């Protein structure tokens, strides 16, 4: 029953080829000696000049990369704190009694719903809304506005990953810690946080990737000094067809392949460790939320 026919394998291969075709084009053309300033895409000869271009400070890619890294770094740091605390606070909430208790309960619940909105609505809405709000309250466009915006859409990734992990944990673990003399704060430090650490890490990586990749929201709230890498790429691609974008993509692919290979190695290590630990479920990098 569970076996694929040759046709199935062919189909899988075909789709993958289609997925890789544009990427391969980019890699191929990154070595093209044709300047191709116009929309003329023909492979004329091997050249490394676009790579030299890319690393030339004049083109500004280095600055853009630094901006993106700084932005992603701060955003992930803040969202990790806010999102993890949020997950710990919101998981398995007891019901409240009394008018004030119930109102508070409902308010926090609404807060949770609003906090995950940014990953559900089209990015352009949040981008526009934040732009309007920032210009109204006078937050200057630039790094602070970018960080505030990125935190808004990074929090849900961390929050949901960590909350999923916490919800899958045996509630008896925290109770056992209390029972054995740990104060609520110590329970947090010795049981809750260590056990949700893989999920926190996984959420942070996800948030980091999302922040590095974000174009739409950054587009609305960036300032003149804060061109992130996606913004830089957009403006390059929009204006002309600069071949060093191909070089940039190839470099990124190289980095990604290295990272994925590294990730696989870590995962393999994790699996071995997990085997030793005997954790239930598949967590590790995926924080136990793997579908």
């Amino acid at each position, binding site marked *: 029953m569970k076996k694929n026919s040759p046709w199935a394998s062919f189909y899988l291969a075909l789709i993958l080829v289609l997925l890789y075709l544009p990427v391969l084009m980019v890699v191929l053309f990154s070595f093209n000696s044709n300047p191709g300033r116009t929309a003329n895409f023909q492979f004329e000869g091997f050249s490394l000049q676009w790579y030299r271009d890319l690393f030339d400070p004049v083109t500004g890619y280095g600055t853009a990369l630094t901006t993106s890294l700084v932005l992603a770094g701060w955003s992930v740091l803040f969202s990790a704190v806010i999102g993890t605390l949020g997950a710990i606070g919101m998981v398995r909430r007891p*019901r409240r009694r009394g008018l004030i208790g119930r109102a508070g309960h409902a308010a926090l619940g609404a807060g949770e719903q609003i906090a995950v909105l940014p990953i559900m609505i089209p990015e352009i809405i949040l981008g526009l809304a934040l732009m309007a709000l920032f210009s109204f309250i006078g937050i200057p466009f630039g790094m602070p506005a970018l960080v505030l915006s990125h935190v808004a859409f990074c929090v849900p990734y961390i929050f949901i990953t960590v909350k999923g992990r916490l919800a899958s944990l045996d509630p008896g673990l925290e*109770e056992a810690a*209390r029972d*054995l*003399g740990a104060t609520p704060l110590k329970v947090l430090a*010795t*049981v809750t946080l260590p056990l949700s650490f893989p999920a926190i890490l996984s959420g942070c990586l996800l948030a980091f990737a999302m922040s590095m990749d974000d174009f739409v929201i950054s587009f609305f709230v960036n300032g003149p000094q804060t061109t992130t890498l996606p913004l830089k790429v957009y403006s390059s691609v929009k204006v002309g067809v600069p071949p060093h974008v191909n070089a940039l993509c190839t470099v990124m692919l190289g980095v990604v392949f290295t990272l994925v290979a590294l990730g696989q190695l870590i995962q393999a290590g994790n699996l071995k460790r997990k085997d030793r*630990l*005997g954790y*239930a479920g598949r967590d590790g990098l995926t924080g136990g939320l793997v579908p």
Partner: protein
Amino acid sequence: MSDRPVLLSLRGLRKTFDTQEAVSGLDLEVFAGEFLTLLGPSGCGKTTTLRIIAGLEMPSAGSVLLDGQDITALAPEKRAVNTVFQNYALFPHMNVAKNIAYGLRMRGAGKEEIARKTAEMLELVQLTGYGKRMPGQLSGGQRQRVAIARSLILSPRILLLDEPLGALDLQLRRQMQVELKRMQQKLGITFIYITHDQEEALLMSDRVALMRGGRFVQVGTPLELYEHPQTAFAASFIGETNLIAGRAAAVKEGEVLLDIAGFSLPCESFDWITPGEELLLCVRAQRMHLSTEPVNAPCRLKGELVENHYAGGERTSLVRLPDGQTVRVRHSTENDAGLAPGSEVFCWWNMPSGVLVRDDREEGQ
């Protein structure tokens, strides 16, 4: 047991979840050094009671006293009471030694003390050499021992155990029952133990508190519960029991004549019985005897043998009385030739084996 001092008192304990009352008015005294079992069907409130004692649940009303001091509002970490959780709740990110030492570490104990006491505990639960293993690498029985060691390292006044053997297979269960009892006697620590297994309760406990619907039905020694059940529920929950419906025809001092299917049977009386009252006669299936010949016994019923189930050393026979009620008899297969379905038989028992109870089976469920 009551010659020992009272260690723990529950007074008017109630707990309501939303609209559901899980515990509805419990009063109990637990004596120092005793092995007390809370026995009852699932949902009877035994786990809630245990969690209230541990401080993991706050009662809606009532109080908990430990050594005469009110600890109702005391946080769980401040109570000299520890718990062995149903699924053990071992910390999966710590090895066995770290798990066991957790309580001491939280207390801020010194390195030397932690090492010494951890080794002691490992030895107590026969897991010396397992300190470096992770919980995931242990068998169910070993995990259970770690959970016990982890709770005992703090030398609690009371150890609470929530169905600790529930996840083990039958053979291991039997072995652990004996081991736990031995450990409790050796350490002299008060155990409050939860189970829904009546055999386990009778085997291990000094006293059993039978619960139903958030209330105690009967609290007593295993012998009292088995031999002198006070209600039909208590009688039917423990052991294999016949509850035969009858009417109190005449009440003399110390004796009641019970009318069952036209037979008049003498039973031990209680002062709450009124003449003409409908009652249930409780007789354990093992205390019933069967014979094909008329027996000269005052407590005797005649009926038709309808079913006959062979189970090796024992046989269960079902006897239908003239009024349609069925009596279950468990007897040895040694001399049971001639007992064929359809034949007329006599069931009899000794008068003290029959106990009169009121029918409360439909209540509080």
